[in-house]
C-alpha cells in the first residue's frame, strides 16, 4: 500500500509539473504582469518534493521517497511540455520520425510481448539520447523563441516590457534562469546568490564572452543543454 501511495504521489507531482508548464504556455500573461515580487511567474511556482531547497543539488528529504528515473513514456511527454512543443524529429528519407519513439524499446520501454518490465536505471543510451537530443531540441528552441513575440516565448521571457530577446542585463538573465530551473526541475530559486543559479549564470557569461557571432543565442543554447543533460531532469 505504501508503494501505491508513493506512486500516486509521484504521478501527482509529474502531473502538476506538466500542468504548470502547460498553463504557462496557454495563459501567457502580458509582459507587464510577468514579474512578481520574487521575480518569477506565479504559474511557474511549484515545489519539488525530492529536492532540498537550501542546496543546489538533489537530495532526499528525510521523510520522503528516494529518487527515481522517469520512464520513457514520461520523457516522451516531458520534452515538448518543457520546450513549448518541440520534439526531436528527424527525416531519414521515409518521413519525419520522433527519435525518442524510435529508440523507446532500447531506452527500456516495455513492448509488452517479450518485455513487460521497464528498467528505470540511468543508462548509456539514455545519456547519449539526451546529449544528442538536447543539441537538436535546444537549437530549434533558440531559433523559434528568438522569432516569437515576448508573451509567446518559452525560453527567454522579457523581465520588463519591451526588452529584446538578446538583452543580457543581469536582471533579465537571472529572471530567466530562475524560470528555467523551475521549468526543468520544479526547483524554486528566490535568492540571487543561490549556488545553482550562480553556476548557470557563470556558464551563460562564459559562453557570451567566447561566442564569436551570437553571444545571446549561444549562451541560452548552452544553458538549455546544461539543463536538459542534468541528471535531475530525468530523476525525480
Amino acid at each position, binding site marked *: 500500500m505504501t508503494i501505491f501511495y508513493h506512486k500516486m504521489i509521484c504521478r501527482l507531482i509529474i502531473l502538476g509539473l506538466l500542468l504548470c508548464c502547460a498553463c504557462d504556455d496557454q495563459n501567457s500573461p502580458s509582459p507587464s504582469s510577468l514579474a512578481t515580487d520574487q521575480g518569477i511567474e506565479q504559474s511557474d511556482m511549484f515545489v519539488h518534493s525530492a529536492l532540498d531547497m537550501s542546496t543546489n543539488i538533489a537530495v532526499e528529504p528525510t521523510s520522503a521517497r528516494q529518487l527515481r528515473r522517469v520512464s520513457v513514456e514520461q520523457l516522451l511527454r516531458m520534452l515538448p511540455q518543457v520546450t513549448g512543443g518541440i520534439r526531436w524529429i528527424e527525416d531519414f528519407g521515409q518521413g519525419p520520425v520522433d527519435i525518442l519513439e524510435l529508440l523507446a524499446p532500447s531506452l527500456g520501454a516495455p513492448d509488452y510481448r517479450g518485455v513487460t518490465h521497464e528498467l528505470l536505471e540511468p543508462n548509456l543510451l539514455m*545519456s547519449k539520447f539526451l546529449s544528442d537530443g538536447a543539441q537538436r531540441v535546444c537549437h530549434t528552441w533558440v531559433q523559434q523563441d528568438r522569432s516569437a513575440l515576448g508573451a509567446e516565448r518559452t525560453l527567454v521571457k522579457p523581465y520588463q516590457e519591451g526588452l529584446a530577446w538578446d538583452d543580457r542585463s543581469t536582471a533579465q538573465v537571472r529572471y530567466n534562469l530562475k524560470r528555467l530551473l523551475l521549468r526543468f526541475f520544479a526547483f524554486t530559486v528566490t535568492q540571487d546568490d543561490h549556488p545553482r543559479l550562480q553556476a548557470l549564470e557563470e556558464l551563460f557569461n562564459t559562453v557570451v564572452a567566447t561566442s564569436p557571432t551570437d553571444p545571446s543565442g549561444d549562451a541560452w543554447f548552452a544553458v538549455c543543454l546544461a539543463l536538459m543533460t542534468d541528471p535531475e531532469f530525468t530523476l525525480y
Partner: protein
Amino acid sequence: MKEKTMRKDQQSKDPKSMHHLSRRSFYKGLGLGLGGVLGWGGVSLSGDSLATIEQGLAQESQSNGGRYFMHLCLEGGWDLLLGLDPRNPLDYPDQDASATGIETGYTRLPIQFSREPIRGDHFELGPCAEPLHAWSEQIALVRGLDMATLTHEVGRRHLNTAVAPSGLSARGSSVSTRIAALTEVDGGQQVIPHLAHLVESYNQDQMSSATALQVSSVDHLQYLLQETLGIPSYMPVHIRGALNRYWEKQQNEYERHWQSQQVNTESKRLLDRALKTRVQARRLVTRSLHESFQFNADHQASLRAHYGIAPNQLDTPFGRAALAAQALKTGLSRSVHLNLVNNLDTHDQQWAQDHSTSLYNGFLALSKLLEDLANSPDPLGGGSLLDQTTIVVSSEFSRTPRLNVRGGRDHHLCNAALLIGRGIQGGQVLGASTNEFMSPLRINYATGQVDPNGRSIRPEDLMRTAIHAMGLTVSDTAIRGEVISSALA
C-alpha cells in the same frame, strides 16, 4: 555441501591455499562483521556492498584471460521432440500416442527435415537441431529440467534470475547481471559490461555498472557508439568547453555534498550512475567501436557471409548471433543476454512449418556463433573466445509431447537446456525425461545419471552450475540451486 567439500579438498592440496584461505576468511569475516553491525543498526547491506564481497570471492578464482558469459534465449517454449530430446518414431508410432503420450509429428514437418532423430557421436538430436551435432564435443545437454510453470513470464524470469518469481514478478538480479558484476575483477575496458538484447534484465542487488544496457536492435547499438545518426553536431567548440567545465563543477558539487551529508543510498546510486553515464556516453563516440556493428557495411562482408545475413535483415537469429559475437570479440561486453529466436509459441497448425523453421534457424545461428567464437581470440589474451565463454541456451519451457486438436503443441513443464564452453564437460547428456508423457526424472548430480533418490534439475541448479563453471562463487542466499558437478570439466 559437496561443492564446499570439494573446494576444501582442493585448498588443502594447493600450495597457495593459505593465501586463498586468508583472503576468503577476510571477506567472509568482513561480510559477517558488516552484517552484524548493520543488522544491529537496523540497516541492510546495500547491493554494491554485497557485490563487493562476492567480487572479492570471485577474484580468488581469476585466471589468465577474460571470463565471458552468454545467456541465449529461444522465446516462446521450444519443442524438445524436434530439438533436444527426440524420440524415434519407430518406438513411438503416432497411433500409440494415447498410450505413450508422445507423438513425434516428424512426418508433418517440411520436407527438408529428417523423419527421425539424428544420431551424433555423443547424443541424438531432433530433426531441427541437426546443426548442433558439429559441436556435440563442446555441449553438455541437460534434459529433464523441471520448470514447474506453464506461464511464459514465470519460466523466463526463473531462468533469467535463477530465483523462482513471486507470482509473475521477478526476484533478484539477472544471472547475466550478477556475472557482469562478478567478472569486474578480470580487468579489460568493456564499455558496456553487460549487453541485453530483446530480453528483460534486472539489477536488484548488484553494482550499478553491471546493469544491462538493453538494446532492441543493432541499429540502436550503432547509434550509441557513433557521434550522431549522421546529423551534424550543433555543438560549437567554445560551448563544449564551457559545458565540460560546468559539468565537472557539478560533479564535484555532488561528491562534496555526499561526503558532508547523509544521502539516501539508492538516490545517491542513481545520481552517481546518471553522472557517470553522461561522461561515458561522450567518451563512447570517440572510439571506432560502431564500425564493428555496421553489419551492412562493405568492411563486414565476411561477417555477413559467415552468418548468412542478408543486407538490411539484421533482426534475425543470425543477425542477433553476430551481435552477440561482436560484443565479445570487440571487447565491448563480458556478459551478453540475448533473445536469439522469437515466436516459438505455436499452439496451432503453424507449428509444423513455423516452429520447425524457427527452431532450426536458432540452432543454426548458434552453431555459427560457436564457430565464430572458436576462431576468435580472447581480447584479454586467454586463448579462443569459446574457451573463455560459458554459454547457457534455454527456453522458458517446452511444448507438449502430443499434438493438440489444432495440430500444434501447448505448454509443457519438462524442459531441456544447453551448457557450452568454459568450465563445461561437453559431449554428454545429463538427466532425462520419462519414456511416457516426457516428465522430468530425478538425477544424481555427481554422475548425471537417472537416480530415483537424486534431485530434479531446476533452473537455479542450471544457472548455478554455469556460474561455477566460470570459476565464480555466488552466495547460497542469492541463488539457492545446487551445482550439477557432473556437468563441470
